[in-house]
């Protein structure tokens, strides 16, 4: 049954031996020291401050969409940092390893990373940044904001929401542990076929990559189902489809992509798994296999995935531009049409990722034209943002600076993307760093959108604003770093520099590579300012207003700041697209409800966390082919799901008096927030 693999295998430990631990690599030892120190500090402080119970009850067992969202964001930020360090290693390696006379350190002939290590670094960079940084950051934002924007108590399936989070965490853990046990894939984040098959890649690296994508993809699919259901079923009374805020709309578009596209990835990876574990030949070159099938399947998921990531960023920009222009969003209906258009057209452009594979002028012509069509709704969005600012009353607070930069980045990424969609241009810069610089412009739109959103909604979630001065320093250093890294990268691409090189034979690239290292140094400054911003803001903690920026327009600014765990004391009645603006115009924004009704809330549960960790154990065992452990943990997951289905606990009811008290005196909210009390369901619980 099992295909023969290189090296020893034992029933107890599978392929795992002591040699799998790279204790001779100084870079990894250093990384391990840092990771271990950070781990000890975190665990130690949790133990010292006796917060184990608090962390377990209030966070790990939480099904509150805001807490789950915050945990998604923390995961995303940690992975963003790790991905950034990978980027630093790539940039410094390429700045050293230029030409035959370049020096070599740490056992590498050129630079300090031999290809074996370098190839893992950039594969990890892509995988982590897209799947474990951008995706959790955006999912987290959607989790926090969508229910608030539509006036809901929680997501439609709070328990499934927690399961999604912990499956994503399991995938991220798998990527992290590959640093210290074994190796990560060297077959890029897309998985090159037939290179990722056993003959070229007999190690466990590809397996780590494959299972990390597989398990987190499962989580993302669940989350997409949850988002769709929440938006369709749980909007506040009065909120028709044309009163749904733009950010919620783009989350709808995104979730539709998620539900439809991720199964394609799951199927492709399952076939790859069969190739690598059972010895089938789906994607091999010979024996009737066809690696082009994989490339088609991967990008059938991969291109919608690009819009899966960038659409929420478009939504964030829309919200922020409108708020800080103190003006309605220009062209709301066309904005929604454009989002849905992008999500739809995104499905028929996948083949532009391999114009150079020789599919002939008919197909290339079709996919080239189809790709250019994406430019239309994207252009509409840019125009609408610009005309939202037109005759507005603009405040250039940090979120607005980010949003404006995102529009500019989108225009640069857009023009280079349109260039690439013309296959005749693609023939010169496909697989060059020009492409890398292009999609980094788009990813920076996502990154900038996330930083804008974090600054914008931070007070809503935590009750105090982030430090504005340090936020601006963070913004300007980040922008300067981006310019210094990616402008030279565009130029190197026009010089023909290929992506994924651990050694550059072309010495004329040296000045550009050095400039990029300067950019990376500036990025380091921006990381410092980001951390300083968080620390200083946490230390000061000046309470924010309910409508923290004074020009909030949508429902989330209507409730208390920070948002109580039940979100809204009473479910709001919606009268307009920009409900809060409408209420302000009618002098109703401070109106208090006359009576409160009991609220039905979901109970916390530790099962999702346990399922996630068992998922991690199962995939880790599959990577190392430890069959007993894989089987046992899979069986345990199935048993837990069965047990859960017999769970009669339908949540608890928050009595009206408690809500009234909480609304009168916000300080009691923190006491009530101890959700461990499970009250029986009864009385006339408010339906949700």
């Amino acid at each position, binding site marked *: 049954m099992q295909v023969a693999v290189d090296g020893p295998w034992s029933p107890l430990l599978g392929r795992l031996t002591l040699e799998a631990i790279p204790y001779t690599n100084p870079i990894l030892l250093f990384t391990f020291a840092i990771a271990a120190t950070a781990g000890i500090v975190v665990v130690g402080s949790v133990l010292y401050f006796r917060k184990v119970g608090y962390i377990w009850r209030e966070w790990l067992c939480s099904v509150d969409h805001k807490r789950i969202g915050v945990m998604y964001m923390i995961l995303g930020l940690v992975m963003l940092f790790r991905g950034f360090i990978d980027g630093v290693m790539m940039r410094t390696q390429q700045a050293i390893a230029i030409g035959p006379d370049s020096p070599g350190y740490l056992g590498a002939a050129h630079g300090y990373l031999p290809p074996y290590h370098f190839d893992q670094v950039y594969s990890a960079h892509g995988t982590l940044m897209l799947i474990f940084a951008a995706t959790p950051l955006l999912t987290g934002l959607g989790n926090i904001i969508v229910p608030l924007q539509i006036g809901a108590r929680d997501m439609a399936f709070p328990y499934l929401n927690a399961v999604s989070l912990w499956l994503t965490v399991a995938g991220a853990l798998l990527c992290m542990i590959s640093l210290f046990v074994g190796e990560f894939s060297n077959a890029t984040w897309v998985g090159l076929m037939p290179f990722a098959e056993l003959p070229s890649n007999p190690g466990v690296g590809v397996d780590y990559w494959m299972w990390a994508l597989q398990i987190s993809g499962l989580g993302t699919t669940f989350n997409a189902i949850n988002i769709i259901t929440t938006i369709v079923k749980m909007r506040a009374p009065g909120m028709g489809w044309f009163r749904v805020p733009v950010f919620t709309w783009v989350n709808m578009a995104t979730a539709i992509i998620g539900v439809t596209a991720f199964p394609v990835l799951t199927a492709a990876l399952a076939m790859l798994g069969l190739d690598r574990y059972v010895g089938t030949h789906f994607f091999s070159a010979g024996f009737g296999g066809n690696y082009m099938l994989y490339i088609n399947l991967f990008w059938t998921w991969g291109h919608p995935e690009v819009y899966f990531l960038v659409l929420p960023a478009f939504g964030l920009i829309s919200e922020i531009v409108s708020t800080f222009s103190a003006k309605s969003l220009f062209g709301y209906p066309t904005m929604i049409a454009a989002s849905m258009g992008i999500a739809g057209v995104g499905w028929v452009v996948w083949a532009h990722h391999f114009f150079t594979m020789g599919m002939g002028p008919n197909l290339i012509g079709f996919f080239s034209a189809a790709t250019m069509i994406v430019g239309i709704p994207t252009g509409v969005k840019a125009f609408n943002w610009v005309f939202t600012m037109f005759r507005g009353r603009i405040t250039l607070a940090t979120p607005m600076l980010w949003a404006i930069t995102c529009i500019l980045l989108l225009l640069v990424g857009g023009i280079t993307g349109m260039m690439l969609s013309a296959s005749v241009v693609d023939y010169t810069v*496909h697989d060059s760093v020009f492409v890398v610089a292009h999609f980094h412009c788009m990813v920076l739109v996502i990154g900038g959108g996330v930083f804008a959103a974090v600054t914008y909604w931070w007070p809503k979630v935590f009750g105090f604003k982030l430090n504005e001065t340090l936020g601006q320093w963070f913004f300007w250093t980040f922008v300067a770093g981006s310019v210094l890294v990616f402008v030279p990268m565009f130029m190197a691409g026009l010089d023909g520099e290929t992506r994924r090189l651990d050694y550059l*034979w072309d010495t004329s690239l040296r000045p550009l590579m050095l400039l990029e290292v300067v950019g990376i140094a500036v990025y380091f400054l921006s990381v410092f300012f980001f951390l300083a911003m968080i620390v200083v803001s946490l230390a000061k903690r000046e309470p924010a207003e309910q409508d923290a920026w004074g020009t909030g327009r949508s429902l989330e600014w209507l409730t208390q700041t920070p948002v109580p765990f039940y979100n809204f004391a009473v479910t709001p009645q919606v009268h307009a697209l920009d409900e809060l603006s409408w209420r302000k115009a009618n002098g109703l924004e401070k109106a208090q409800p006359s009576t409160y009704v009991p609220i039905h809330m979901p109970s916390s549960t530790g099962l999702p966390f346990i399922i996630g960790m068992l998922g991690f154990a199962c995939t880790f065992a599959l990577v190392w082919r430890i069959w007993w452990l894989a089987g046992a943990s899979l069986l345990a997951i199935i048993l837990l799901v069965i047990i859960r289905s017999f769970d009669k606990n339908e949540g608890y009811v928050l009595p009206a008096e408690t809500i009234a008290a909480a609304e009168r005196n916000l300080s009691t909210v923190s006491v009530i927030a101890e959700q461990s009390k499970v009250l029986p369901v009864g009385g006339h619980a408010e339906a949700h």
Partner: protein
Amino acid sequence: MRYWRKLGLLAPLALAGCSTDNMRLFHPVGLMGGLEYHYTMWITGIMLLIIVPTVLMTIIFPLRYHHSRNAKYTPDWHFSAVIEILAWAIPLGMVVVLAYMSVSAIYRIDPWTTPALADAPGASLPPVKVEVIATDWQWVFVYPDENIATIDDLVVPAGRRVQLTMTATEAMNGFYIPQVAPMVDAMPAMISKDAFEIDQPAEFTGFSTDFSGAGFSWMYFKTRILAQADYDAWVKSVQASQNQLTYDVFTQKIAQPQVNYGAVPSYFSAPNAGSLFGKVVMDAMMGKTYPVPDSLTKSVSSTEGEAPASPAAK
């Protein structure tokens, strides 16, 4: 305005971007490269017509309508049929033009049929056929009509069309000579094509663009365009080489995973050059692979020059 000052910092960078001396793609050679450059410039130029005004508006509006300036303020203005129609029509019109250009360009440059080379001076002469085999991690150039082969050195005559037929032994690679030939993938068990024609003697560097494993960075090769007479002399000298490339030498030695540090060329006489390419393609289809053991991947470039020994053929 302090924001203007900060934007001013970017000006030197923009100027640096205007110097194209170090950017090969701005200096195309030959019809294929020239055509690519032509379309790149037109497509980019047309797009700048709408990108530049949008960039300007994105920068100017936040300053013009900054709250400190008390400019005209219309908080509820959120729709204008004229602007909406323009917002859809302008990108639509641009996309129609660009798509037309892109589609007509691909029919002109198609590397399989190369209509772009139809008017070239070399169109009346028989093309030079070169069969390209990408191994892990070298380029093998087989000249079926001349019965010679080289590694990492593509030598062709000036003024004649060069017709490349490509495949690979193990991993997928991208064949690319900037300024000269379009990028086309060389893939195991498949045949792809590329072509170019250069009318003056010149030298270029070509390389692989699609990652193929640990030795990928060393997969570059010299491309030499010689005058016809020099080319003929070169072919004769290689035909006399004692170094022979046969199918057995290819499968047991050359196609085995190895890194050619510095891309040092080698030259072979190849009596049966005409049959080698077809056999390599057929082998791959029948499932022949040249496995890369983990130990090899781990040791590449740890000490250059002492290339790890090739594993025995499987």
